[in-house]
């Protein structure tokens, strides 16, 4: 059995961060047989996380979540974008993990935001964070702006990212594109 832990730092209810995290997890589940998925909703642990910062040790229920993150075969981490970065709650959770506890861990990163203009949060904030932690972040991160929920494109990115995570879990090299972008002319002419 393979285990996947989903950490999401959405604050609202319903929450687009929660929604994106769920879709990423379901897409991964479709590709990885016998995948056990556990979900950590950081909002429910907000006080525990703050207490851990102060006291240096986790409460019993936070310890359970930390253990599920550290012990999982893969991690999906999704945060809302606040002031051009991950949310403070998200970072605080990462800050209470023991040093080196994510070394080598396959991670899929995701973020949500009000507008597309924040999409680089993935590559300017989340990716360097996990690089520092020496986790292995899959090439595709998934950013969902409000407008993405009413447009096409998001499901394809979700599937591509999930596929990369599944490949990493299976120890497969990422699948190369089947072609180099060549499209027969009759299809081009048909507008596709």
């Amino acid at each position: 059995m393979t285990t996947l832990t989903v950490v999401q730092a959405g604050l609202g209810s319903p929450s687009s961060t929660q929604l994106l995290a769920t879709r990423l997890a379901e897409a991964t589940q479709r590709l990885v047989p016998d995948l056990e998925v556990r979900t950590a909703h950081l909002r429910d642990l907000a006080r525990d996380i703050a207490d851990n910062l102060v006291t240096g040790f986790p409460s019993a229920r936070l310890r359970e979540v930390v253990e599920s993150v550290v012990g999982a075969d893969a991690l999906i981490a999704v945060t809302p974008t606040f002031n051009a970065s991950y949310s403070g709650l998200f970072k605080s959770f990462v800050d209470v993990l023991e040093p080196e506890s994510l070394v080598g861990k396959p991670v899929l990163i995701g973020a949500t935001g009000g507008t597309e203009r924040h999409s680089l949060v993935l590559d300017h904030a989340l990716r360097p964070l996990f690089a520092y932690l020496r986790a292995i972040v899959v090439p595709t991160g998934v950013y969902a702006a409000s407008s993405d929920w009413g447009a096409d494109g998001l499901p394809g990115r979700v599937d591509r990212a999930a596929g990369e995570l599944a490949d990493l879990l299976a120890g497969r090299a990422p699948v190369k594109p089947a072609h180099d972008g060549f499209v027969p002319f009759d299809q081009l002419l048909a507008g596709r």
Partner: protein
Amino acid sequence: MQFGVFTVGDVTPDPTTGRTPTEAERIKAMVAIALKAEEVGLDVFATGEHHNPPFVPSSPTTMLGYIAARTERLILSTATTLITTNDPVKIAEDYAMLQHLADGRVDLIMGRGNTGPVYPWFGKDIRDGIDLAIENYALLHKLWREDVVDWQGKHRTPLQSFTSTPRPLDDVPPFVWHGSIRSPQIAEQAAYYGDGFFANHIFWPKEHFQRLITFYRERYEHHGHGAAHQAIVGLGGQVFMRRNSQDAVREFRPYFDNAPVYGHGPSLEEFTEQTPLTVGSPQEVIDKTLTFREHFGDYQRQLFLMDHAGLPLKTVLEQLDFLGEIVPTLRREFAVGRPADVPDAPTHSSMLKAVVR
């Protein structure tokens, strides 16, 4: 079994009045607490060593020497002696001197100190913390046991034909505990020398310390000093008592809520559930303290932190009266079912007897 108090020597405003004691008041309060500890029948007083505000005890042997002159029975100890940033030669000399003045009523708990800037102030680097603790203690151990020492190491100028004076009282070095809340290397160091291991477990849940103490016990046996259950273990504790549990909680809460270490975090109720902190009636403190043996095995020394977070001296002295009241019960209860081959904590007289025999 030994019971006592340890103090960090923090100068903290009393959150209920906003008043901050002066350094002079705090230093005299620490002395008053030590004298009271002897008066109510405790065995040990241990002072912290710090070299940065808001702490006052930078010169432990000065204070302990003064207390030695005013007490008869009390064992004078440290919590902790900075084995990293102090020169081991000076530790060897200072504490041997104190031994003579106190007729042997001296031991030490070694610690590394966890405040980054203190290291460079003494020409050291916190990244060398473990290495300094290992090397400095190896030298200290030698200085107390060999009259003439040739020595060379990484962190100090070499010594040729050096004799540390005065020699330890009766040629019996003070007993040493090694304190750590995290580092298996320090537990291993304590086990290697057959020294004591002091786990100040007051701020964290017991599971963490169970691993550390079990490791120390196993390694103590491995290094041939005795069976694991005979290793010399000391524990911290933190209590506040009133006749009625509710009165204790009401009075202590503002101190808890504003305490330097854990204040503004978890609630008093959560913290007492997760850590050894006990706020309640004397019986509740007895009950909680007796659980330590279930978690960590039969042990030798129990030190309580009584005077931090801005508690006024008057209150602390009342707390010591409570301690004096419950310690006979604790002694009796801890003795029940204790295997005969579990040793007491070594003292000067017990170590002297062992040598003479």
